[in-house]
């Protein structure tokens, strides 16, 4: 991913400079600024007496520099000789699609993760070829790589790519990262005719200050990025910055002392003395901004000559305030620069406010929201509170106007509607070409998807708000008549009924040969296939939320403000997680994460094993909608009228779409398209 910057430049000598640049970095073992004692300087006398011997990188082992670097300087042929070919699969999992960059130590590939067979999940695979001839050195190199990968895996920030995996195969190590759609800042500068607008660069500069502050504030020890330059800054498809290349390649060159040649135009003078503090990152950020504003590549200029070519002499459109910020960050003496990236950000914000760049940044973001145009929309005659089903190219959704609609998934064209005598607030189910859904007219309706005509109906004695669950030749559905009905799919008659004490709005879930269903009285029931009670669990208030299971546990929320994990086999509570308010939303699972909305307006992400909160995302009104996970995104509606798309691992907002009314149904995502109904009477199809 980060090797992309090398791509547009075809000249071989530039590649050689790049290699030299990497070599220079050797000197600075990344964490030399550690204060190891600081983090166990707790109140406990037990470990205050300990002296930790400093761990100096690259000193224990003398590497045979020539043997390692030899093939690199002729990098392109050795790398290409070993380069993976498209179609090759790594560790039975990562199917290589293309080379997206060539770095100093190997290539960067775009690959597809085959663990997600039904969707195309793209990842960036960064390769490091380990050419050390000595097995001990080779092993040390791999260990260094793994230690770096471990540290990176703990960094959670919107502007830092996620690490998914790392592994070593033969003489190569691989790091699997988030694939960033976009291009690097160097390519952006080179591909833009003329100068980039100031407000754009201020916006990026503020984001870069944010991510550097995050790294500098890392506990227990600050992380110094050391390698800020345009080719290490990706601009993604939303126009946001992502910082790439955290020096994994550099750890491969541990111990190559004395190979310091060349000039790295973005590094501050003190880095050549082996010092690196956060002030070094400030200088490099200044150099990066200077390059972006002037289009003058500092690698082609004499070292530390920024003062000789002030920004405004080359690009007069830049404000003098912005130029002053850049000059301060580029001071030769570190003490004269901004004391921290936070201070630099404050200065940039002040410039942005003064020049009006800030107001231009804000509308740009609203424009992004409004820019999301539905693929199609379809208007019904009343509110849509339920959720859609997709079956053979058609969308089926119920409406409060008593009709069930069949629409073409491709263009939203009306196909047929089927009238009932009550509102439809649930999600239909499909079996053998027939749709199953309940209505407030107390009936379970079975309708042919082909003709839209009724096949049979089943009467309960109360309104139906629960969605049907089809399993084991039966449709299981709850009703306001306080009964769970097990309806035989062939005969249309009840095989058995399980009577509870309260209306059932929750949708039954079938797993472990049990049917799980919650009631408005707060009781969770586990019922076997003969209709006998296996166990039950009492929550303090209504369980409207529909339960789900993984191998271990049954998960659901209650209006009592708790998210529950029960042992699915015997009903013992494994953990309880406090939400700020009650919830009628149904949880969704992905990996080890559980997601749910609540009336406090938040969408929560909770660790399944430890019940620790991973993140929460705040919307402007209660979240009754249930989250849907698709690829690496979470989709969920809110009563504030928006459909939100979040990155599910971080909770970061990707986009939101505003409908004209509350969204209480749950999104359906298929083939990169989201289908959602709103209380504004409309069904929308949006690009995921």
């Amino acid at each position, binding site marked *: 991913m980060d090797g992309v910057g090398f791509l547009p430049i075809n000249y071989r000598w530039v590649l050689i400079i790049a290699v030299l640049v990497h070599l220079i970095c050797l000197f600075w073992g990344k964490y030399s600024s550690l204060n190891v004692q600081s983090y166990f300087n707790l109140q*406990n006398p037990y470990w205050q007496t300990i002296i*930790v011997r400093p761990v100096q990188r690259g000193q224990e082992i003398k590497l045979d520099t020539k043997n390692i670097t030899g093939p690199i300087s002729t990098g392109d042929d050795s790398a290409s000789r070993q380069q993976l070919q498209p179609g090759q699969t790594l560790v039975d999992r990562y199917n290589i699609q293309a080379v997206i960059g060539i770095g100093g130590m190997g290539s960067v590939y775009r690959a597809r993760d085959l663990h997600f067979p039904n969707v195309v999940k793209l990842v960036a695979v960064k390769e490091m070829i380990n050419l050390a001839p000595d097995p001990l050195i080779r092993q040390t190199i791999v260990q260094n790589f793994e230690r*770096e990968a471990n540290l990176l895996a703990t960094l959670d920030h919107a502007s830092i790519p996620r690490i998914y995996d790392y*592994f070593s195969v033969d003489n190569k190590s691989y790091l699997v990262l988030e694939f960033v759609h976009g291009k690097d800042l160097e390519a952006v500068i080179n591909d833009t005719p003329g100068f980039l607008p100031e407000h754009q660069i201020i916006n990026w500069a503020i984001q870069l200050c944010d991510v550097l502050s995050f790294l500098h504030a890392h506990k227990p020890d600050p992380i110094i990025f050391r390698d800020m330059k345009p080719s290490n800054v990706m601009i993604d498809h939303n126009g946001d910055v992502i910082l790439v290349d955290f020096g994994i390649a550099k750890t491969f060159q541990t111990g190559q002392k004395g190979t310091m040649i060349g000039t790295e135009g973005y590094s501050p003078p003190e880095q050549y003395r082996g010092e690196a503090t956060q002030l070094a990152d400030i200088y490099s950020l200044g150099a990066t901004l200077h390059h972006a504003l002037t289009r003058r590549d500092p690698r082609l200029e004499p070292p530390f000559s920024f003062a000789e070519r002030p920004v405004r002499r080359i690009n007069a459109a830049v404000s003098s305030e912005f130029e002053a910020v850049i000059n301060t960050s580029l001071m030769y003496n570190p003490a004269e620069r901004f004391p921290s990236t936070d201070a630099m950000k404050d200065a940039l914000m002040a410039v942005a406010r003064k020049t009006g760049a800030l107001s231009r940044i804000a509308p740009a973001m609203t424009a992004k929201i409004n820019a999301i145009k539905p693929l199609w929309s379809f208007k019904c005659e009343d509110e849509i509170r339920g959720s859609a089903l997709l079956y053979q190219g058609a969308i089926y959704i119920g409406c409060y106007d008593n009709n069930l609609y069949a629409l073409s998934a491709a263009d939203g064209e009306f196909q047929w509607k089927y009238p009932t005598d009550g509102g439809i607030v649930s999600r239909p189910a499909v079996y053998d070409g027939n749709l199953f859904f309940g209505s407030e007219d107390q009936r379970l309706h079975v309708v042919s998807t082909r003709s839209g005509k009724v096949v049979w109906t089943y009467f309960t004695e109360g309104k139906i708000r629960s969605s049907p669950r089809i399993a084991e030749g039966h449709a299981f559905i709850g009703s306001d008549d306080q009964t769970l009905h097990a309806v035989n799919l062939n005969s249309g008659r009840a095989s058995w009924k399980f009577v509870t004490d309260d209306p059932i709005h929750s949708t039954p879930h079938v797993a472990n040969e049990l049917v799980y269903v919650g009631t408005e009285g707060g009781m969770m029931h586990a019922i076997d296939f003969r209709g006998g009670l296996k166990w039950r669990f009492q929550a303090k208030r209504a369980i409207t939320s529909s339960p789900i299971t993984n191998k271990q546990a049954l998960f659901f929320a209650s209006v009592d403000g708790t998210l529950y994990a029960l042992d699915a086999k015997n009903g013992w509570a*494994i953990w309880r997680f406090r939400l700020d308010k009650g919830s009628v939303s149904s949880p969704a699972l992905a990996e080890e994460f559980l997601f749910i909305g609540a009336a406090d307006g938040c969408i929560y992400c909770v660790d399944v094993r430890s019940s620790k909160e991973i993140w929460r995302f705040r919307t402007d009104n209660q979240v009754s909608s249930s989250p849907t996970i698709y690829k690496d995104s979470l989709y969920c509606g809110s009563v504030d009228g928006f459909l939100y798309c979040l990155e599910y691992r971080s909770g970061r907002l990707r986009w939101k779409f505003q409908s004209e009314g509350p969204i209480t149904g749950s999104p359906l995502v298929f083939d990169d398209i989201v289908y959602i109904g709103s209380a504004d009477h409309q069904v929308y199809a949006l690009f995921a």
Partner: protein
Amino acid sequence: MDILRKLFPKPRRSTPASAEASVTAPLTDQQISAIMKDTSSHFEMKQLVVGAGQSIGKQREHNEDSLLALTSTISGNSGNVPFGLYIVADGMGGHQYGEVASNAAVRIMAGFILRKLHAYLYSVPSQPMQESLQEVIQSSVVEAHRFVQSEAPGGGTTVTAALVLGEQITLAHVGDSRAYSIYPDGRVEPITRDHSLVKRLEELGHLNRDEAANFPHRNVLIRAVGQGDVIEPDVVTIPFPQPGYLMICSDGLWGVVNDKDIYRAVADAHSLPRACQNLVEAANAAGGPDNISVVLVQLIG
């Protein structure tokens, strides 16, 4: 690091050609027969079986380790509830109250947990309780922490406790005793993460594995029951390894016997108490520098 290793197991070494050809990881005959052997012994009723072992070691004068193993089986028309509580605690070396702390911790925790569960397990009619297992075990650690602070001031202890109910293990963990899942195919996977200085440095990338192995302060804990104002145990719930074993042990075992030998000692024994004795002997054979405690649990049926 261990957790990451677990999440991203090292891939098999393979040539690119075979990597392309095969999709599913093939098992060796040995692995297959090991798995088959274990599944062939069939028990109709789910139950926990346990073994335990302890030794003062070869170089210490006091035993500062404590362990507790409690297994209960209830089966009948109200269902089948295997229940077990297994705790290993290692009193902090050099503290005069080390042995008091570990002993108190296992008893206080077990008493607390049993009082909470008693009404639900050992009375009729039985029904699931409201408080969650994670809350109960978490509170039991806090209770032990308070007790050690008031009754053995200055003392500290590790605690690794497994509450097994049905087919789930709820673990509470503080310090550098460890819980492992051991599988019939030879995998010995740590479930817990040490709260030790050396582990912390390793995770932060200050030490590589060789440096960590030779680190002079390997026994320094950064979290212990009885130490500090607040205690925050790691609490997780995971499925019981089936087929396989749950093992809890003090650093007197894992510090000197490697994973391979641990597996060997368990696989070669005909019973769990024998396996525990084998493990203790292996640790003593390796010098026995510290007290050794081990509990092995299997869920059969």
